[in-house]
């Protein structure tokens, strides 16, 4: 994994950012499936470790409430198609969730096997085993109910929007999904580290979801630019907003606009869309600022692209990091250094060309600590890290564009996101919302649950 570039002579007066730090073979190895699938016999052994708990804690820990003991038992008995159907009934993105869920904080953390063994049943890997089997067989377990004649607009083709669309389609409604980008899939397509979803899995899963029928996908349609909520309310019986968080939080320090300072999410997306990883420019020394999975993903991927030194700097400690222990360990074992308790103060650059521009050269951090009241305070002590590239990964923000409702209704926000009730219904009765544009855990599996619950509520409303 750790294919260090040859010690090289970067010119002393400009950043060292190059494509092709590693050859195709090394890149192929580095970006291969992070967790290769279980073979059949291992899956049987693992599935037989499941106690088939009554009222199982793992089910309660799953935001989508997958009947985990039931699907695992089906794997053990050889009814792998049945296992996949159980999963997909509760979570149509069961395939992707098997790859990206932080199971160590959800189902696998709840597994009763942890009590004495500290070794849960590998629920995520088993879920992948089952769903891979179904996709490989090309089996379609869903059939649509008779057409209801009702039409629903879904804005956003990510996990929340597509989960909602799929369930509505199965229930007989006609769904139109408006997606701002070129491809649907949302963060599954643009926001997940490449080695977590190899072989075009996000698009294969999308194709599976659309194959049920009744879902029209319209890409390149952004709310606020190409669409307005008020128009959708006029043209459809209900609207589901799953527009995510389109904005990137700024560092708010001097120099963050200089060259070489990038949004981690943009580079992660570019990496996922790249047909040739060797063509991606990557810095020799990379500094990532942030503490979530985005920070982990950009840091690990730049390291695997051939960066020599990659450091994540987070202003709090390992326990406060939203990236799980497992994610932190993943980055660290791939050669990423994580530096805690420091926050950026300013960026220092090289002059570029003659136009007065700068390219980043160094980031100055100030150490932090918690005071007696548990508040984060700066210590005054600083440290500098050399950096050819700096990635900002301090969070995304909801952008409320195009949300004018018309007709005097007001779409209320809760804090920085859209306010919803338990049915994911907004303050506007025919408008629902879910995924990262509402409050709650920013997880694929939570987005899927939002979409599912909203679809059920919309169905009740349209059937009433």
């Amino acid at each position, binding site marked *: 994994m750790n294919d260090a570039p040859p010690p090289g002579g970067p010119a002393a007066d400009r950043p060292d950012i190059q494509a092709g730090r590693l050859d195709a073979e090394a890149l192929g190895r580095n970006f291969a499936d992070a967790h290769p699938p279980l073979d059949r*016999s291992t899956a*049987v*052994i693992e*599935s*037989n470790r499941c*106690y*088939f*708990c*009554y*009222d*199982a*804690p793992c089910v309660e820990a799953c935001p989508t409430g997958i009947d985990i003991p039931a699907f695992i038992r089906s794997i*053990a008995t050889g009814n792998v198609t049945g296992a996949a159907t159980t999963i997909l009934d509760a979570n149509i993105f069961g395939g992707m969730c098997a790859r990206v869920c932080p199971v160590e904080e959800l189902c696998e953390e709840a597994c*009763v*096997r942890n*009590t*004495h063994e500290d070794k849960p049943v590998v629920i995520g890997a088993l879920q992948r085993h089952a769903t891979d089997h179904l996709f490989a067989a090309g089996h379609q377990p869903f059939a649509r109910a008779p057409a209801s004649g009702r039409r629903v607009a879904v804005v956003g083709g990510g996990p929340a929007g597509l989960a909602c669309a799929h369930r509505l389609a199965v229930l007989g409604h006609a769904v139109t999904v408006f997606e701002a980008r070129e491809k649907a899939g949302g963060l599954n397509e643009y926001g997940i580290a490449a080695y977590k979803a190899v072989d075009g899995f996000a698009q294969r899963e999308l194709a599976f979801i659309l194959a049920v029928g009744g879902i029209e996908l319209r890409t390149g349609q952004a709310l606020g630019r190409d669409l307005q909520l008020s128009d959708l309310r006029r043209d459809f019986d209900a609207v589901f907003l799953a527009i995510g968080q389109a904005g990137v939080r700024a560092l708010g320090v001097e120099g963050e606009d200089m060259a070489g300072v990038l949004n981690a999410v943009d580079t992660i997306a570019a990496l996922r869309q790249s047909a040739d990883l060797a063509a991606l420019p990557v810095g020799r020394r990379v500094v990532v600022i942030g503490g979530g999975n985005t920070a982990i993903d950009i840091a690990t991927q730049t390291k695997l692209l051939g960066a020599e030194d990659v450091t994540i700097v987070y202003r709090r400690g390992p326990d406060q990091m939203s990236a799980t222990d497992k994610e932190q360990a993943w980055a660290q074992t791939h050669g990423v250094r994580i530096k805690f308790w420091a926050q950026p103060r300013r960026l220092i650059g090289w002059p570029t060309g003659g136009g007065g521009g700068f390219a980043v050269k160094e980031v100055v951090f100030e150490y932090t600590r918690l005071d007696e009241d548990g508040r984060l305070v700066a210590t005054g002590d600083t440290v500098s890290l050399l950096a050819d590239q700096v990635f900002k990964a301090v969070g995304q923000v909801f952008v409320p564009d195009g949300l004018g409702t018309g007709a005097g209704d007001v779409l209320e926000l809760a804090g920085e996101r859209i306010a919803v009730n338990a049915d994911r219904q907004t303050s506007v009765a025919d408008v629902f919302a879910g995924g990262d544009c509402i409050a709650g855990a920013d997880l694929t599996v939570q987005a899927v649950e939002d979409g599912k619950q909203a679809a059920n509520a919309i169905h009740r409303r349209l059937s009433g």
Partner: protein
Amino acid sequence: MADLTNDFIGIRSPNPFWLASAPPTDKAYNVERAFRAGWGGVVWKTLGEDPPIVNTTSRYGAVAYNGTRVAGFNNIELISDRPLAVNLQEIKQVKRDWPDRAIVVSLMVPCQEENWRAILGLVEDTGADGIELNFGCPHGMSERGMGSAVGQVPDYVEMVARWCKQATRMPVIVKLTPNITDILQPARAAKRGGADAVSLINTIQSVVSIDLDQMCPEPVVDGQGTHGGYCGPAVKPIALRMVGEIARDPDCAGMAISGIGGVSTWREAAEFIALGAGNVQVCTAAMTHGFKIVEDMIGGLGNWMDAKGYPATEAFHRAAVPRFVHWEDLNINHKTVARIDQASCIQCGKCYIACEDTSHQSIAALRDDSGQRRYEIKEEECVGCNLCQHVCPVDDCIEMVAVETDLGYANWQTHPNNPMRKEAAE
């Protein structure tokens, strides 16, 4: 270390672990490997008359349970398919080279006295320690009037045993088939015929599985299947019961028993010996893991005996026999209830759902204020069946605790609900 040397009807071996008559004892090569590994003795794979029988391919089926291979094992192999003279020569050579190990020769010939006399003389010349009459094989040979076809007719068992005892100085072991309603009938017949011992169980007639693609019983032999003989860990309880039946039968008193059936570790061996076996014979475990398993059998049995203070196997031989009683002798006033050790409980709920769905609704599924699961026994409802203890995945988490009563001992024989009760003596 405890003394594991074994004297079984005068046949001495350094330990009570013999390999049963089966493929592992088919020829000198295997047997010598077994002896080098430490096995105390072998029963050489059954000799028959020439020309040798012919075997099929495949020969084995197996039950994998919850990912564990060969939880049960099934074979359709017959007796030795090698010429008699080759077997006899090899037996003679191995016995000469390994004088401290037991070599018993399994035999199966047609039910005529002269056939038995003829082969007994040949076996005696090898120096073998004894013979085992294969009255157990339940497939192939039984259709030719041998094996279990003999074992299922007590008169034949007695007759052949008597012929053999009269014709040879060698000790005679009669191997019994479990494919019979009452194991005591052939066992008593063997005793009447003068047999020194019985060995049991031979395999149980079985169809191990169906290949659902070929729609054919397994093992599949060119598109067809047949019943075979079942053995391995799955059959141990059946074998143990039959051994115990014979051990406690007054009519069988004095006749030794060689325990066979699912012995895979020292622990099963200890159980068989405690319930009346003088030694044990092993096959499936060796076929699954190789001969090396005998090391732990020897070490494990010795360590257990040391821990228990048993200097030799005789010290616990038959120790469980007096406690193996008929149901009507059990104390029906004895009462236990389950108790859950909350400290080791992992909150899987298996005890709850087993009791709630299938037993006596004696376990409460509770949640504490923090939402934590908690399972509690409703002692007033608990009948002490101990299903919960068996389904609990945690060792010693559920304990069956005796409840004091002032009822004393009572059994079904004198119970008022028994219309056939015996009146208590005045």
